């Protein structure tokens, strides 16, 4: 067991590496009623289209498989894990992202009984063919639900128009055709390949006794029947060109006010640099477009925009982009103004601005630590990207004006794609 302390933010993390290679992270939360455990596999939608070998057969992973598997992992020998959790007063859920599938429960009492259920469901695949068939319509309805969200549709269009090779151009859940093509053989092949203890991590957050946790982990027998670990191939998408596919797209959507998004395609960064890169971009975009920003109030006064500008920074394996979006009837004018900001001549940030925005980020990071659920999920997400969530404030403090200028120039030099949603496309 290793212990790491973060004095400034009053945090500590205990790390255990079990014999079966499963890594466990425990973050104590004194005084909180909620206790949470989240276990995740390094397997998400970016792993689609890979070939897996199972019983001498080669199986190609369809789009949406990681998400489908997530739906069907709640079966434990003809029992529903959700029901077992509920019987013990725990709530449970799961999510699939581009590179991760995570399962968790949250409870007040009977933590170890609930942890048994979580580990039991993650260490075996027990779904029948008929259950898998039944799940298809449920997933298709889930995909339909997302399609009705104007924001989701806009983002998907930007990804498809910006990325030729990278699987971000596909929806995490796949589409109706790919979902229908998934069967038990495919799910089992993915389960065998990616749900090995060495490819999983377990994060536990709550007011728990350290010794009790140690005892539990030392006696834990899950995953014992797992065979020899297969070597997991690292995924990479280095052949993605830096250019975009389509500069501008107008989509028909039943919206009251047009919405536009601009994706700036940036050069990918190494995983260990992602945290720094994320904070730098956050500072820059906040400086420009937050309510405190140098443009927001002026543009609102001039009616260049009529609502807040939103932004998002996405980073992942061989992937780095920012999206700026807004709801606007006169979107062409707003787009031109945003492009002008990134003309390499508009970087005017002072040290005072930088320190003020750093203060804001320190405050928001500290507030994030208060929710047991958010903390568990964030810690895990950073961990899987090779970063330490609790080092965020230290990294933030090191950022200089030159760093932000560098980020500004990289956005200014980036190719971009624009998508507009409106209801009256001819």
């Amino acid at each position, binding site marked *: 067991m290793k212990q790491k302390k973060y004095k400034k933010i*009053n945090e500590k993390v205990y790390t255990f590496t079990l014999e079966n290679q499963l890594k466990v992270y425990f973050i104590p939360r004194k005084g909180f*009623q909620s206790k949470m455990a989240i276990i995740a596999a390094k397997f998400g939608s970016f792993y689609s289209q890979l070939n897996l070998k199972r019983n001498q057969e080669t199986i190609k992973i369809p789009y949406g498989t990681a998400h489908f598997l997530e739906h069907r992992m709640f079966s434990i020998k003809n029992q529903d894990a959700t029901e077992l959790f509920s019987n013990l007063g725990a709530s449970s859920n799961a999510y699939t992202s581009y590179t991760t599938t995570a399962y968790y429960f949250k409870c007040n009492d009977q933590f170890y009984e609930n942890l048994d259920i979580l580990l039991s469901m993650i260490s075996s695949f027990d779904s029948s063919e008929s259950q898998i068939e039944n799940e298809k319509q449920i997933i298709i309805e889930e995909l339909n639900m997302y399609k*009705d969200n104007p924001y989701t549709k806009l983002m998907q269009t930007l990804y498809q128009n910006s990325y030729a090779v990278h699987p971000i151009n596909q929806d995490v859940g796949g589409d109706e055709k790919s979902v229908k093509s998934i069967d038990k053989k495919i799910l089992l092949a993915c389960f065998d390949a990616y749900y090995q203890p060495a490819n999983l991590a377990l994060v536990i957050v709550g007011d728990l006794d350290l010794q009790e946790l140690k005892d539990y982990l030392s006696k834990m027998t899950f995953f014992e029947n797992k065979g020899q670990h297969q070597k997991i191939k690292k995924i990479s998408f280095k052949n993605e060109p830096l250019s975009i596919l389509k500069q501008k797209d107008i989509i028909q959507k039943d919206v009251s006010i047009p919405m536009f998004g601009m994706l700036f395609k940036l050069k990918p960064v190494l995983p260990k640099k992602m945290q720094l890169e994320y904070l730098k971009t956050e500072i820059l975009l906040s400086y420009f477009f937050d*309510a405190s920003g140098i443009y*927001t109030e002026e543009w609102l006064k001039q009616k260049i925009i009529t609502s807040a500008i939103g932004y998002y920074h996405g980073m992942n394996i061989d992937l780095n982009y920012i999206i700026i979006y807004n*709801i606007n009837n006169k979107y062409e004018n707003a787009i031109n103004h945003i492009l002008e900001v990134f003309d390499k001549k508009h970087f005017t940030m002072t040290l005072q601005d930088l320190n003020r925005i750093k*203060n804001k980020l320190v405050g928001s990071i500290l507030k994030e630590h208060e929710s047991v659920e958010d903390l568990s999920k964030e810690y895990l997400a950073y961990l899987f990207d090779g970063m330490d969530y609790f080092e965020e404030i230290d990294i933030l403090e090191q950022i200089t004006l030159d760093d932000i200028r560098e980020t500004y120039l990289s956005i200014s030099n980036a190719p971009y794609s624009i998508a507009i949603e409106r209801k009256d496309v001819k």
Partner: protein
Amino acid sequence: MRKNKKTIKLSKQCRLIIEKDNKFKSMGVEVIFFGKFDYKKITIYSVLSRILANSNKMYPTMQLMNQRKEELYDATLDIVYKYWYQMAVLKFVGNFVNPKYVTSKTYEEDIFAFLAETIFNPNIQNHAFDNDLFNISKSYVYNEILLQKDQPSAYAMIALLKLLGNKKQAIAASVFGDKKVLNELTPSNLVDYYNELVQSPFDIYVYGDVQFSKIVRMIKKYFCFEPTRQRKKYLPSKAILPFQIASKKIYKDVSQAKLAIAYTTGIVFNDKNCYAMRVLNNLLGENQQSKLFIELREKQGLCYSIFSHFDSVYGMIYIYTGIPMNQVDKVIEEIDKQIQAIQNGEFSSLDMDRAKIDIISTLKKMKDNMFEYLNYEFRYSLYNENINLDEIINKYQEVTKKDIIHVAKKIQYKTHVVVTKKD
């Protein structure tokens, strides 16, 4: 009284309630002004709250005000109008970092001074708010009124509530406001509404890792203000009558139909049957093993999600889901069957116990989220009741199967809304 909680009378009309909990890295402050529900104020306060959150005399522009919030380590200030039948409040909700984590020695003083300045010293000149900020705020509200139609699931619920009363009643009024009221607003008449607001009685709640004496001293320094309006009691709930009304179909370019159904129960917040009704609602469609979830999603694959919600202000149950467009009638029929099953006692003790455990577990977790807890405490205070989580938990534990069948028989279909694509 619990040792970690203090209630202090600040003046005839105002109270300070402080609750200490040292596990948090931030501090919550709510300043709550009381009044009577007024339909127009949904729109008026929506504009006013944007102006107040983005300017005051000391920081008169949106940029300066928000830069000050950044200096104060992401000081957030949300201003929300909440209403329950005739009762209404305007809440200023502040969230600030625990002073332990910042280097500034005056941080605590700075945030209370900032909060008081924002509430009591707005940027008013010549009896008018700043015209630019007024127009910006108005345009935000205008956009929100338009955009409510763009999220079809939420829109189905808004349309359902609209059917339940006239548009000026709290149950049916759109939380986004009304274009006509918005058009009548001016930077000057908004000042009159502001003046009326700050003459209303208020309570201040402070929650977090705080020192009682320090907080009392600062509140007395910055919030020593005697409103001229009297604290009055307004009814915070009334059951909607059970007669049926015509359903509504709304056409929109959607990929799946959104269905929202309303049922009356006649049981409101302070009714002794309310506990049984909440257990019923949980087993019907709130928990992850609810009858609706199991039957419609797990067994029949008709939907991805389905929920029921018990609204104790009006004694209503709302059910909402997204389904294939050709299955609307079937789903309505299936939902009705599940309600009938509960009315006939067709549920196990395990179903009932699971529902109780789920509710109790949520109650126990409540103190992990200061704002959730403050909301809950406030709801009880509307009925002059002090919150006692242990007593509330006991009341849920005492609910029997007979109680659930008894309240189930009060459920009556009222109406429904479907948002779907034109054939």
